[in-house]
């Protein structure tokens, strides 16, 4: 069999031809194609989440010297399916004091925002829902809907824990959106496009040397840390904080509505990993991808899985931050570093250096800024540590 004939484009072209031959109007064809594309993305997302939940539980289990799910199906693979079926049949308790309409709307919006994000993710050169001009900004816009959903859930549950959780979500998601976005602007500046696929194409030189993670490692680090916070993951999971506020904004939700928040959480993590892959790890780029476009999908999913694995690893390993630490880490460390990096990259790119020299200068600047930042952070922290202790006043972090 000729492997190079496996081209996902061919399937699309075949389907397009089929629709034309059925004698439909132009608008009708567009509508049906959009419908099929949207359904494919939805099905992909749901199947993916079933796998991701299993993967994360298994990984956390192994990392913490447990077995993880191992009863239902081979290696416990069907555990999530069983859980989903169970949640489908569970009673749905709505607290009497809840603000009904926003309460019921919130889980739907949470799912809505993660599924919408799938639309601009380039799985391969041509396998992308919609390669729009404003791809990166679109993801930001979709994320804004997510924090709105959390705020609605927190408010409408009429529960103190939920409200505190909702507030923490918004404080955290809003704060970490700034370093996340600033870190995403830098690759946009280097490649000169906001299209998600354009960003992947721009990193296309051989054997991964063109990936932005090599020339802009600091931008990737800022992005990754901020994406942990945006994904509500440990060490930034204080908006769920089981031991303090029980479960955060989704405490009053049960049955399928809780399942939607759960699904949104896992899919959001994956989407953030996918964005990281696209922007910093060359997306679908890899060896022989020009000869065999279908390989791109495999590369893309593989790289995304590795990033997702690192996220899960961090989650299973690190303890939770306190809210004041979380906020100062963002505003006093990540944001200033991102701003300095932005300025440095802008200036270096305008020096018009020849190619290998430019990449090396970028790398050196990144490392230098990172080292300076870490040194300053270490110095101030040490100063705070050895500062003369005042009389003991219990510092209960206020809500």
């Amino acid at each position, binding site marked *: 069999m000729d492997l190079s004939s496996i081209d996902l484009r061919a399937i699309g072209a075949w389907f397009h031809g089929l629709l034309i031959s059925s004698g439909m109007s132009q608008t009708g064809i567009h509508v049906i194609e959009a419908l099929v594309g949207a359904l494919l993305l939805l099905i992909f997302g749901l199947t993916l989440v079933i796998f991701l939940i299993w993967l994360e539980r298994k990984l956390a289990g192994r990392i913490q010297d447990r077995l993880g799910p191992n009863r239902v199906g081979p290696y416990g693979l069907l555990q999530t399916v069983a859980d989903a079926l169970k949640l489908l049949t569970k009673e749905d308790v709505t607290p009497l004091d809840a*603000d009904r309409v926003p309460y019921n709307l919130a889980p739907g919006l949470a799912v809505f925002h993660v599924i919408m994000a799938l639309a601009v993710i380039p799985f391969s050169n041509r396998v992308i829902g919609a390669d729009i001009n404003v791809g990166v900004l*679109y993801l*930001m*816009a*979709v994320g*804004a809907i997510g924090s*709105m959903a959390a*705020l609605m859930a927190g408010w409408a549950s009429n529960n103190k824990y939920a409200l505190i959780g909702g507030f923490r979500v*918004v404080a955290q998601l809003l704060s970490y959106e700034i370093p996340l976005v600033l870190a995403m602007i830098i690759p946009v500046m280097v490649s000169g496009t906001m299209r998600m696929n354009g960003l992947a194409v721009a990193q296309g030189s051989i054997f991964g040397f063109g990936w932005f993670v090599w020339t802009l490692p600091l931008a990737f680090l800022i992005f990754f840390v901020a994406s942990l916070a945006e994904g509500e993951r440990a060490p930034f999971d204080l908006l769920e904080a089981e031991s303090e506020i029980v479960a955060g904004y989704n405490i009053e939700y049960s049955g399928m509505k809780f399942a939607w928040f759960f699904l949104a959480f896992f899919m959001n993590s994956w989407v953030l990993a996918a964005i990281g892959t696209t922007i910093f790890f060359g997306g679908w780029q890899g060896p022989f991808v020009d000869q065999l476009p279908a390989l791109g999908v495999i590369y893309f999913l593989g790289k995304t899985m590795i990033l997702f694995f690192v996220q899960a690893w961090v989650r299973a390993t690190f303890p939770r931050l306190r809210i004041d630490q979380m906020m100062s880490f963002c505003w006093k460390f990540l944001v200033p570093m991102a701003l300095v990096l932005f300025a440095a990259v802008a200036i270096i790119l305008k020096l018009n250096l020849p190619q290998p020299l430019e990449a090396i200068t970028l790398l050196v600047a990144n490392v230098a800024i990172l080292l300076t930042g870490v040194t300053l952070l270490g110095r101030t922290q040490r100063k705070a540590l050895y500062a003369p202790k005042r009389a003991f006043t219990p510092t209960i972090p206020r809500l």
Partner: protein
Amino acid sequence: MLQQVIFILMAIFTLGMALGTVTARNLFHAALFLVGTFAGVAVLYVLLEAEFLAVSQVVVYIGAIATLIIFAIMLSRSMMGKEAGAMNKQWLFAAGGSALLFIVLAMLLSKVPFATQVAPVPPDTIEQIGSSFVGVYVIPFEVASVLLLVALIGAIMLARERHG
């Protein structure tokens, strides 16, 4: 054809949400209706092929401004939970002001020469916006940064006053 249908549906949706914003008794609900209005306007921008405006609308208005409004509602104790009346003592002035604004807007709209021909939207609008920020419109661009700085300083001053 399809575009017109979507436009009409979205316009009705936006107007309905706007109506909800001003008539909702619960302030939190009013804020959520406002979010719906913003979303509707964003879709209208997409129909005009102004993608950058559409995403800015969502990012800035839904992501930032609406959140700020909800925070403000939650900060002011007197406004929360209770059903606020739609009428108060100032209704007469408010009605007068709104009527005046409506007249001004209506007059402006009747004077504006609306394009009846659809011009093709250039494909690289974002690049054009970007280069005009630092080109033709550099003064407003820099003034915007000063404005943002002033807003930041003002916010900090106000918040400090609350603490002290």
